């Protein structure tokens, strides 16, 4: 791929960014499309929780189809496609080689989008697989995994051709993610999980690992790159960061069965999962300490950078959601919160406040550098940040607050079941309001990305900001 280069030994950062341009843009733009689609589905599903008759006459608009499709488009559309784009860009910069197999990856991205479209129609038509996180038909899932395998091949080629000897901690996370996810996807597609309990076991082994071994590594890799990069200050302790990575690699994989506490699965499965969930405190605290010690004292620089606003928010959410998860996995806590809105909010802190906010932050850094344009409006970026941050905050407080009361009501035999439902309605309305805030944020983000890519001639004519900073420091 790089045979035509006159300087085969080293690529400059800007050369690498230019080569990454079309691949990363294509993946990110696809992701943004699915973000908007998934947001629409989320709003419909959220409104249906307190307006149950709304859009209830058409089968394809019922809650049981809209809500799973929301999850699947967000996970395999927005977070996976954009995450893959961010991951490939990070690897290109950190291994100092251009992204390999660029043409193949774009074709794979197209196939991926088509698979998502077919899968979406199938779910709306009622042909869901009926397994949470795996509602897409197996055909769609296998196509997506094959596309990821093409990217994994590219990643391994970049690793072999790399121009640096030592691997940065982000690279560790990303390589592991590109090896783990194909395994998860293929195993979960095997037609062998035919009894209900084994299927439930596979379900949560897959679903929890998809979060922990695919999205979490991409998110943490981005945090480990952007925090030092924007602050211009190396990570506090590189040794700690490696400890965090190997801790995740060792403990996370066993966590999934804590979703089945109280279920008819072997108790030792569940007990191993609970222990592993609590062990996750080690890598999480290690990452949190490391990020905190790097950022501390540079708060002004965090505020001044659109990237770091999102990235630091996401990194704090990661700490919060992971520690919360370790507590939730305990049998005594699980007894209360199982089957309540608390868990729904927990999942959204993970996938939204952590993964999605991290991807927003990464996009704010990457897109100007690959398109060589500056963002259209600083004010809109701030609106995007506050709308989404406040949105997910309201969402969390409302659902986790009422979730605890709902849980205690549900285990109290004196409370009629209907009461445990009606008591949540005001908080479900709050959830819809927070959803509107986040939707507004997403529309702003999509508009900014749209302006960046389709109307480059109308971008601000001022010199690129980072070039100016670079010149200042050079003089």
């Amino acid at each position: 791929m790089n045979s035509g280069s006159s300087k085969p030994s080293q690529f400059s950062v800007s050369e690498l960014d230019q080569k990454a341009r079309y691949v990363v843009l294509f993946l990110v733009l696809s992701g943004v499309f699915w973000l908007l689609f998934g947001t629409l589905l989320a709003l419909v599903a959220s409104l249906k929780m307190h307006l149950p008759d709304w859009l209830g006459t058409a089968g394809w608009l019922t809650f049981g189809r809209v809500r799973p499709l929301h999850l699947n488009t967000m996970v395999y559309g927005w977070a996976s496609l954009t995450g893959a784009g961010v991951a490939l860009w990070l690897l290109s910069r950190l291994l100092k080689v251009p992204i390999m197999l660029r043409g193949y990856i774009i074709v794979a991205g197209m196939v991926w989008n088509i698979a998502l479209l077919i899968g979406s129609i199938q779910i709306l038509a009622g042909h869901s697989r009926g397994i949470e996180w795996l509602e897409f038909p197996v055909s769609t899932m296998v196509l997506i995994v094959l596309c990821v395998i093409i990217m994994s091949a590219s990643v391994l080629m970049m690793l072999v051709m790399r121009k640096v000897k030592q691997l940065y901690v982000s690279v560790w996370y990303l390589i592991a993610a590109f090896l783990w996810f194909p395994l998860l996807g293929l195993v979960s597609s095997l037609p062998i999980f035919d009894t209900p309990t084994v299927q439930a076991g596979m379900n949560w082994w897959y679903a929890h690992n998809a979060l922990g071994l695919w999205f979490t590594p991409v998110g943490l890799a981005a945090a480990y790159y952007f925090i030092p990069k924007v602050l211009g200050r190396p990570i506090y302790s590189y040794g700690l960061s490696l400890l965090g990575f190997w801790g995740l690699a060792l403990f996370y994989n066993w966590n999934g069965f804590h979703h089945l506490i109280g279920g008819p699965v072997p108790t030792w499965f569940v007990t191993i999962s609970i222990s592993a969930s609590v062990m996750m405190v080690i890598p999480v605290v290690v990452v949190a300490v490391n990020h905190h010690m790097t950022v501390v004292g540079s708060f002004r620089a965090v505020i001044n950078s659109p990237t770091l606003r999102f990235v630091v928010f996401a990194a704090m959410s990661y700490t919060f959601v992971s520690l919360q998860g370790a507590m939730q996995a305990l049998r005594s806590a699980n007894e209360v919160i199982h089957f309540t809105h608390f868990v729904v909010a927990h999942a959204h802190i993970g996938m939204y406040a952590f993964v999605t906010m991290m991807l927003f932050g990464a996009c704010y850094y990457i897109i100007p550098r690959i398109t060589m344009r500056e963002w259209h409006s600083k004010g809109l970026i701030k609106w995007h940040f506050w709308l989404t941050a406040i949105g997910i905050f309201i969402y969390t407080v409302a659902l986790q607050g009422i979730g605890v009361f709902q849980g205690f009501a549900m285990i109290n035999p004196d409370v009629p079941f209907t009461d445990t439902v009606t008591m949540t309605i005001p908080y479900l309305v709050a959830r819809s309001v927070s959803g509107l805030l986040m939707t507004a944020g997403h529309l702003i983000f999509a508009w900014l990305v749209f302006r960046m890519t389709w109307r480059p001639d109308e971008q601000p004519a001022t010199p690129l900001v980072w070039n100016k900073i670079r010149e200042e420091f050079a003089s």
Partner: protein
Amino acid sequence: MSTGALILVLSSLLIIGGGLVLFLWAFFNGQFDNIQRGSMLPFDEEEPAGKRTDQIFKEEEKEEKEDEIEEDNERDSTER
């Protein structure tokens, strides 16, 4: 134990085993020989450590923080 459960346990062991193989490779490849040097990998001559990037909201504020950057740099050099 059913085939499905067996496959799940084997896959989990494969993930852990893969991690161990990676770790051993890294160890013998010398990845952990000079650990602190790894923290400099995001930086290069074009964008060296000590230079902030992406401060696009800064222009709106007064140029008050120049000295703070220098302080940070001093802190970093003393730590190393």
